[in-house]
C-alpha cells in the first residue's frame, strides 16, 4: 500500500533558530493533515502507514479546515492549531506553515501524551 518512492513533504527544512522542522503546505497538491504525516514519516524515518492514526489524536478534517477555510483579510494567518503526536509538537498555522518541534526543544509537556506506537 505504501509507496516508498512516493513523496516527501515538500521543502522540508530545519530552522536552527527555532529548532523546528518547517514545511509549507501547498494546497494544490495536498492538505495540511497529509503534509503533517509525510513530514513526520520523513523526520522519524518511518513508513506513513506505521504511524499512529492521526485521527486518534486530532480530527484531520479540522486541521485541514484551519487553512482551507481561513478568514480573509489581515487576520488570515492568525489561527493556529498545536498538538502532540509521536512525541513531537506540531503547529499548523492558517497561512499554511507547518512546524514540527522535536521533544528536546519543546519537551516541557511530558505526560501529555502516551507513546504507545
Amino acid at each position: 500500500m505504501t509507496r516508498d518512492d512516493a513523496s516527501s513533504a515538500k521543502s522540508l527544512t530545519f530552522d536552527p533558530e527555532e529548532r523546528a522542522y518547517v514545511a509549507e503546505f501547498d494546497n494544490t497538491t495536498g492538505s495540511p493533515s497529509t503534509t503533517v504525516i509525510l513530514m513526520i514519516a520523513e523526520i522519524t524515518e518511518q513508513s506513513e502507514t506505521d504511524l499512529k492514526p492521526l485521527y486518534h489524536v486530532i480530527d484531520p478534517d479540522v486541521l485541514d479546515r484551519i487553512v482551507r477555510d481561513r478568514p480573509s483579510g489581515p487576520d488570515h494567518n492568525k489561527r493556529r492549531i498545536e498538538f502532540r503526536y509521536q512525541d513531537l509538537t506540531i503547529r499548523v498555522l492558517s497561512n499554511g506553515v507547518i512546524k514540527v518541534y522535536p521533544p528536546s526543544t519543546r519537551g516541557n509537556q511530558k505526560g501529555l501524551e502516551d507513546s504507545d506506537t
Partner: protein
Amino acid sequence: MDLNHPVAEVQSYSAVTISIELAGPSCGTAEYGTTMPTKVDDNSSGSIDDGQAVSAVFNLLSHHRRRVAIRYLATQVGTTTVADVADQIALLEGQHTNDRYARICVSLVHNHLPMMEDAALIEFDRDQGVIEMRDQPAEIISHLELVNDTDISEESV
C-alpha cells in the same frame, strides 16, 4: 459543513459504475444501486430522527473522498484493499500521479477509514490493509444519492 453540491442529479451515477471496472482484478462487478444485499433483520432504512445521528451522517459525508469510498465499498462483496479504494479516488480526482496516490493513501489510513470505522460503518484491518463494510448503510446511501460526485477533480484535497 461542506454541502455545496448540486442535488437531484442522481442519473449521472453511471460514471461511477464505469470507473469500477477499471479498478483491478480484485474488484467486484456489481452495478451500483441495483442488487445491494440487505440483511433480513435490517430495519434501519427509515429516516434518521436523532439529531446527533443526522449530524454524524452529514459529517461522514462532508468529504468527497469518504463519499467515493462509501459508494465504492457498497458495491463490494467481502474485503476490499485500501489500494483499490485509493485507485477509485485517484481516478475520479483525475490526477493519478505517485504523489497524489500516496497522499490519498495517507488520508485514507489516517483520516477517512478510522472515521468510518468509528462510525461503525466498516471494519478496517490496518495490518492487512483491507476494509469490509459492516452492513449496507441504507440511510447513508440514500443521502449519497442526492449528490453528484462524478467530477471531483476540482475538490480541495
